[in-house]
């Protein structure tokens, strides 16, 4: 029972398949509050599927996922969305909603069927926008924003959900160098400041190296290594993961992962 109090997200023997094609198997991991847990792996390793199982958009074939000790299967969609908020990898805007209206949509899990957001919901949304430094663009149409700003808007929407688990699917996929570090360091701050349990997938292991507290390496739907970035993101492990020679360079404190040279 000790473990439930500590690990907000607890995944045991998770398995998932689309028809006959197994995507995830025997996956066991846990993420705790105030930590950023990065899932690293090549394309099609099952990273996104894992996140979608935690959001309960997909139903696992085997195993259990618990949030705060509660089995996801026993929770309604609304209950899940109050516990876990997510930022999608790609977002196709349908209408030019104002930024504040998009962030306000994060309040939906707290609203009844016929209800509209009220003064408290607006206050929570404004708080989220201020925390991420986008309050100044609250009335701008969100279709006219840069990729980095859009990512912050979607992050603010997730914060407005007031869930303790934050799931991010490749949060830096479409961002330039500066925005990538802006978004990732913001996510780090949030984990500490709000006590969030952050689980994110990353395609560049350097993002995990710099910003994650713990890393899980996923290959072919299974977890092949789990631990701190220094333990897991070794030249050996990464070389096997990506099937190419990889070097880890260091200046003594920081480490950078680069393609290796055959020698």
């Amino acid at each position, binding site marked *: 029972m000790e473990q439930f109090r500590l690990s907000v997200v607890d995944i045991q023997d998770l398995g998932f398949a689309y028809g006959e094609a197994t995507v995830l198997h025997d996956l066991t991991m846990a993420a705790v509050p105030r930590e950023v847990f990065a899932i690293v792996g090549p394309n099609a390793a099952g990273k996104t599927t894992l996140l979608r199982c935690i959001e309960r958009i997909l139903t696992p074939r085997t195993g259990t996922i618990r949030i705060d000790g509660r089995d996801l299967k026993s929770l309604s969609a609304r209950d899940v969305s109050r516990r876990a908020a*997510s930022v999608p990898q790609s977002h196709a805007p349908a209408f030019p909603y104002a930024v504040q209206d998009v962030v306000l949509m994060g309040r939906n899990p707290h609203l009844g069927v016929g209800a509209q957001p009220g003064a408290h919901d607006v206050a929570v949304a404004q708080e989220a926008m201020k925390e991420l430094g986008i309050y100044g663009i609250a009335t701008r149409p969100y279709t006219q924003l840069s990729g980095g700003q859009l990512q912050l808007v979607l992050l603010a929407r997730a914060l407005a959900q007031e869930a303790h688990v934050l799931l991010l699917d490749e949060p830096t996929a479409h961002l330039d160098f500066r925005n990538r570090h802006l978004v990732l360091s913001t996510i780090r701050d949030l984990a500490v400041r709000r006590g969030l349990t952050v689980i994110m997938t990353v395609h560049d292991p350097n993002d995990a190296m710099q910003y994650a507290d713990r890393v899980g390496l996923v290959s072919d739907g299974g977890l092949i290594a789990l631990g701190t970035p220094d333990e897991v993101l070794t030249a050996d492990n990464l070389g096997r993961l990506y099937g190419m020679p990889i070097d880890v360079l260091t200046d003594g404190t920081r480490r950078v992962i680069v393609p290796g040279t055959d020698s």
Partner: protein
Amino acid sequence: MRRRRFLPTLLLMWVGVLAVLLASLCLGRYPVAPKTVLQVLISRFAPIARTWDPTVETVVWQVRLPRALAAALVGAALSSGGAVFQGLFHNPLVSPYVLGVSSGAGFGAAVAILLGASAAITQASAFATGAVAVSLTWLIARSGRDRSHVTLVLAGFVVGSLFASLVAGAQYVADPSTKLPQIVFWLMGSLASVQWADLLRGTLIVVPCLLGVTGLRWKLNILSMGDDEARSLGENPWAMRVILVGLTTMATASSVALSGVIGWVGLVVPHLARGIVGPDSRKLIPASIALGAVYMMLIDDVARTLTMGEIPLGVLTGIIGAPIFALLLRQNRSDWN
């Protein structure tokens, strides 16, 4: 986009609804002064001296008022239906008609006219086949593996084509001197023969549906984010879509039963409304309802006053709607990308 305060804007729109309603009661081959119109209306509820010709009373109370109210009802139903569908399908070119409701209802009406049924039976028949057509669309879409929007729209196209063929068949066998003009006129839309009883039947279905849609309008914003995001925001998109499409279809089918087939309204009015209040459904739905009522009353006024005869409403909404829509597409392209 400049942000106006919403409540005053909406209030202004409803003042517009009342103003256009009053104008509709005055205008016509037999013009009545606004003051007299008001007196006639008041005399229905309060005892005041009747200083006007009884003909005036008949024209205002029996002919123009039910017709103008029916126009407002149909306009509100079709416009809010368009706004709902555009939100649900993230597409500017959809309206409830894409699910086959108009051709379905058209077929029911055509058969009833062929059999020489009364107006009430014709409306009931139109409503029933309109509902059957949408149910059929739904069943076809559900039977497929892919439960996406596209499947639903394509299924609607299939069902619409089927009923369009059946309508053509009905027209082919109809007596060209008596029944055929009736069918054609109905298919082009008309409010010329609306009675209080017809209006009451329509109101009993349309108003509760519009109230329901208005109550759920916040969920439209959530659903417009796409199914996956709606789910992670705690919504069940499939169930919510069933409810919203159901309410909208009922309102549309009963307004088609009342007025015949009137196209374009559900496309043009939500675009106008979006230009005024923005894309947020919390404002867009009430604005579409009010603007739709104004738009349809104006169209109907033109239909009955422009020439000596009646112009079919569908013809007018097409002639007016297509250029407006083209203009809107030119101006607000950014709304859609």
